[in-house]
């Protein structure tokens, strides 16, 4: 008897409720299971709750996040994910309404797989298939090793990091 694979799970992060509704619908046309949250900190909270004792295995196969958000930006979220031993292999895609080459390059260099200009379209979501292929999914063994790692950022670390990030941006640069 074969194993029934669970649908691929995408975590969508956007502070705009309209854009959350849109991205959720776009992702669902590809039959992905979607969790949509309205901030980077909620996303980290969700990702941090990979505690097998508390919850049934909630695997996230891809994170798609808006760049401009109050509090933690999408870039900061990307960085946190890539710095985390347990989360770094999750592909991250950034969305932005602003076409700023420096911003795009920064995100790609930090490890984002794709950068989508908003409004995001069906064709864009179609590009996510390779990142969500079965080969990228961890085996059960690997999952166990990863879940024992507690190197996910705490809220304090995120605050400090956010301040550093703001200092790096030139004065007057807005989203």
């Amino acid at each position, binding site marked *: 008897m074969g194993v029934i694979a669970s649908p691929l799970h995408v975590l969508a992060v956007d502070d*705009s409720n*309209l*854009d959350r509704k849109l991205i959720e619908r776009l992702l669902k046309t590809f039959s992905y299971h979607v969790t949509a949250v309205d901030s980077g900190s909620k996303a980290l909270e969700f990702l941090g709750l990979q505690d097998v004792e508390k919850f049934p295995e909630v695997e996230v196969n891809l994170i798609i996040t808006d760049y401009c958000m109050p509090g933690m930006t999408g870039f900061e979220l990307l960085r946190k994910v890539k710095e985390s031993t347990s989360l770094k292999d999750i592909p991250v895609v950034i969305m932005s309404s602003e076409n700023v080459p420096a911003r795009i390059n920064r995100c790609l260099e930090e490890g984002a797989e794709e950068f989508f200009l908003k409004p995001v*379209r*069906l064709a864009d979501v179609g590009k996510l298939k390779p990142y969500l292929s079965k080969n990228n999914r961890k085996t059960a063994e690997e999952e166990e090793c990863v879940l024992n790692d507690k190197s996910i950022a705490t809220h304090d670390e995120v605050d400090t990091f956010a301040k550093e990030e703001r200092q790096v941006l030139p004065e007057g640069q*807005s989203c």
Partner: protein
Amino acid sequence: MAAVPQLQRQFIEYTTSLYNEGYLDDQFTQLQKLQDESNPDFVVEVVSLFFEDSEKLLNNLATALQQNIVDYKQVDSHVHQFKGSSSSIGAQRVTSVCVLFRNCCEEKNLDGCLRCLQQLKHEYINVRSKLEALFRLEQQILQAGGSIPMME
């Protein structure tokens, strides 16, 4: 009650004019493509969110521009949100005014900002009444037993 073919023709003509006059752009068509039997009210739901967001943002903008010392970063942030939601539904004219508005914010031009706010209100009210008319037409077609023509 008008016959279905007549209503459908009206619908096609009206929709076409909205695109030709720049009220709507291709993003609106993209929204319509996402509507199906399992999501039959998707467009209305998304547009309703746009109406809610817009009205809140117009109030926020009026308040922000009335302050003794105007915080242009705050004003810009509201306009940025407005631009985002209008472009997400394809309300092209609204988006265009937002672009001009952001320039005025950057220049800290109060008169320019106030003019842009008036223009923004005007364009928003226009597109809202046009979309409401479009949805009414759709309802008439459906109630007469017809189907909404697909626009290419």
